[in-house]
């Protein structure tokens, strides 16, 4: 039994010592356009900024009728602190952006923001 206890303690400290370097949890700092913004022209980019690298795995842009508008992204789904995607030219209306991503510490993240384009 004593040997089990020694194994237990040795393994505990071995695992503690080989633990990797610290990584942090990302949080969204801002969006482009800002949430709730009313724009007079179609936005050139749709984006988010994060305080730590985030791998954005899904982003969608839908209008008030639920129709989806494709976004062109160039991040290759790599971790980024500034995420930008190009939308097509958007007609007047209300739009919602939904995104999901994976922070460096493994936390799955999600968020939404909205903006309006006036005619």
């Amino acid at each position: 039994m004593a040997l089990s206890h020694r194994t237990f303690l040795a393994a505990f400290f071995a695992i503690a010592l080989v633990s990797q370097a610290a990584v942090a949890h990302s949080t969204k700092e801002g969006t482009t356009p800002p949430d709730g913004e009313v724009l007079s022209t179609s936005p050139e980019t749709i984006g988010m900024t994060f305080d730590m690298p985030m791998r954005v795995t899904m982003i969608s842009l839908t209008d008030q009728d639920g129709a989806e508008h494709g976004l062109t992204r160039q991040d290759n789904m790599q971790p980024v602190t500034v995420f930008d995607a190009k939308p097509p030219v958007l007609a007047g209306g209300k739009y919602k952006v939904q995104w999901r991503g994976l922070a460096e510490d493994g936390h799955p993240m999600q968020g939404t923001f909205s903006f309006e384009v006036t005619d």
Partner: protein
Amino acid sequence: MMAALASADAVTWLSICIKAMVYATTLLAAGLVLILLSVRTLPEDEDRRLRRIAVLMAIASAVFSVLRLPIRASFLMGGTWAGALDPMIFGIVLESPLGTAVALRLVGLGLILGIVSRNRFGRNSAALGTIFVAASFAMRGHALEDPRFLLGVLVTVHMLGLAFWLGAVLALLRLSWYSSPQATGAFAAEFGRKALLVVPVLVLAGVVTLLVLTGWGVALLSSAYSQFFAFKLALVAGILGFAAWNKLRLTPALHSGAPAAAAQMRVSLQIEAGLIAAVLMVTAALSTVSAP
């Protein structure tokens, strides 16, 4: 708190339920090993059955842990089932801290299977396995933040303490059903003595982890995370109350042969087990839909 849950989609709810099952089965597998290796008053027939249950829990934990990978992939693709099978997203999940945690847990669960053997190799393998599975919970999420070493040790200690407790509750429940009041009383008394050391360490590790994560400040109760945590603490207080009742009143009553003591112990343990299940569910929700 309720708003965070109300806005959760089907995949998030599935994720919460699977995560709670991972907690329960992993902690029971590791906890039963800790009980089998450290408590000497288990009757022989229960010792044999608890070894089998530990193996079953280890297998169930492996299945639930692996299930977390496609569910995470599905979440990352907007909650679609097609996302769960997307090779690129699945690869990203495998390379993420969740993949590392699951891999380490699977190794630990494999080692825990050594508990079927009573020889030195089996015991050492199972003991090593409990460390691996407890440490697997420190391989992801906020446990990876600075101070990484301290948080890793705290989370591992917290999980080991919790495992020991869960293992003891299951063993006590079975003894109260299938063994004599004297055997139950003897086990409860030995567990009670060990719990005097384990429980304060378990609670302290949890509290210090929370304080480190929140910057040694008291979090505002307005955030979903704080509300979840307050609810969890209330449940833990209830568990501690029942545990104290078991130790101070029911264990001596079992020893003295009081006729109703075994039935009372059984009811008390069932309520305690229900509260523990609630704590695991709340913790799964807490770590899925909110963050400190």
